[in-house]
């Protein structure tokens, strides 16, 4: 009865920013980033990649409430880069890694389909009631 509409899980509301950054006043080189309309899918990946950067001393994420699609990421670096630069670097690395995964996967698929066509003698795709795109 009180359930909010499902599109609110991924569609930003009017005037709602995607991210807000809060620099920590008491701890040097630390920042808290609040990302709206995101969940574990992105946040866990980002956190794991941040931990793999040499200059990051602390990286963690939290979802303050399971019913609200908001993620809070806390980062602290050793000073050679700002926390924002660290997140940008992590994003870049992840995008590059995903490109590699996609290419390797596509190559494997091509190999598998070629082998299957060779076995079947170019009969085409087997089964299914549809022909794909």
């Amino acid at each position, binding site marked *: 009865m009180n359930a909010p509409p*499902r*599109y609110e*899980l*991924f569609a930003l509301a009017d005037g709602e*920013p*995607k*991210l807000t*950054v809060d620099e920590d006043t008491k701890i040097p080189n630390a920042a808290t980033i609040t*990302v709206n309309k*995101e969940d*574990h*899918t*992105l946040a*866990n*990946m*980002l*956190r*794991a*990649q941040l*931990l*793999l*950067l*040499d200059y990051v001393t602390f990286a963690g994420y939290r979802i303050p409430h399971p019913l609200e699609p908001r993620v809070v990421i806390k980062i602290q670096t050793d000073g050679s880069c700002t926390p*924002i630069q660290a*997140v*940008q670097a992590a*994003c*870049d*690395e*992840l*995008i*590059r*890694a*995903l*490109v*590699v*995964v*996609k290419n*390797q*996967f*596509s*190559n*494997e*698929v091509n*190999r*598998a*389909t070629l082998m*299957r066509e060779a076995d079947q003698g170019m009969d085409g*795709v*087997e*089964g*299914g*009631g*549809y*022909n*794909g*795109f």
Partner: protein
Amino acid sequence: MPSTSEMEARKLVKLGREKVHDISATDFPGHHPGESHHWDLEQFKAKLQVHINSLSSSAIEFDLVGVDASVANALRRIVIAEVPTVAIETVYIWNNTSIVQDEVLAQRLGLVPLAVDPRKLHKKASNDEEPTDLNTIVFDLVVECEKNKEAKKGETDPSKLWNNTEVLSSMITFTPKGSQDQTFSSNPPRPAVGGILLAKMRGSQKIVAELHCNKGTGKEHAKWSPVATASYRLLPTIDLRGPIPLPLHSKFQSCFPPGVIDISTGHVVVADPRKDTVSREVLRHPEFEDLVSLGRVRDHFIFSVESAGQYFPEQLIVEAVGVLSSKLYALKLSLNDLVL
């Protein structure tokens, strides 16, 4: 630098009788003194392996080795919920004299998987946006149950007494609107599976409905999910730490699913750990408990993805990686805007 065997040992999640140890990865900078574990693209490229075990038009099983658990999980979550597909969203029921209520019929129609290329349709900006030929596909469902004039006298089988006693998903017909004649000429939209029973009718019952289909994602409603299911498991490892006495060989073999342990040569050999379902039955027997150590390889993911019919499974994974990349890219752009 630690030895290869130590590096291999670090990759394992250890499964004890009651507890699971070493669940998290430890290869990040600062954890092992003197070793450098920062992420390197070339090293990642070298270590990444993708191997397709089986591929059919409806399902794919493949191995993804060398990625972190967070990436594999993100991929799984995206395949289930964030790859867009097309499904029936609005049903205009002009006539329904069947037993099945309007709303029940509409709900069932929504769940019918459609073989429509989602890349050819735009997503509606909001639910109230006007339907156009660029964002909506219209199907018609017109079925009438009439008396079969050729039925024999005294026939009791309702499928012979009447025509169209069952409304199946194959009875949904596509009506192109506007420019859809050209866009969908090569591959007309149709239900991915024809035999889905939507309603049963008798007598002079009729269903006349117009179905509007929109693009959406599984996050909004499960009908837009392109998979029957997508899951992954980690590759199990069985390490024999001591010799198993000969009389106990067959008992040891029976603790595992068939094909995992081979005792034909007189020695216990782990033939195929991949077939193991890791029930940890061995650890329940005191005579075997110390001779075996069970584990899972932390970065070896065996994915199993079953498509519901909208995409071919191999295209689905590629789309999923694309969606994940675009999410990261959007985040990066927002960060750049903030910094500038």
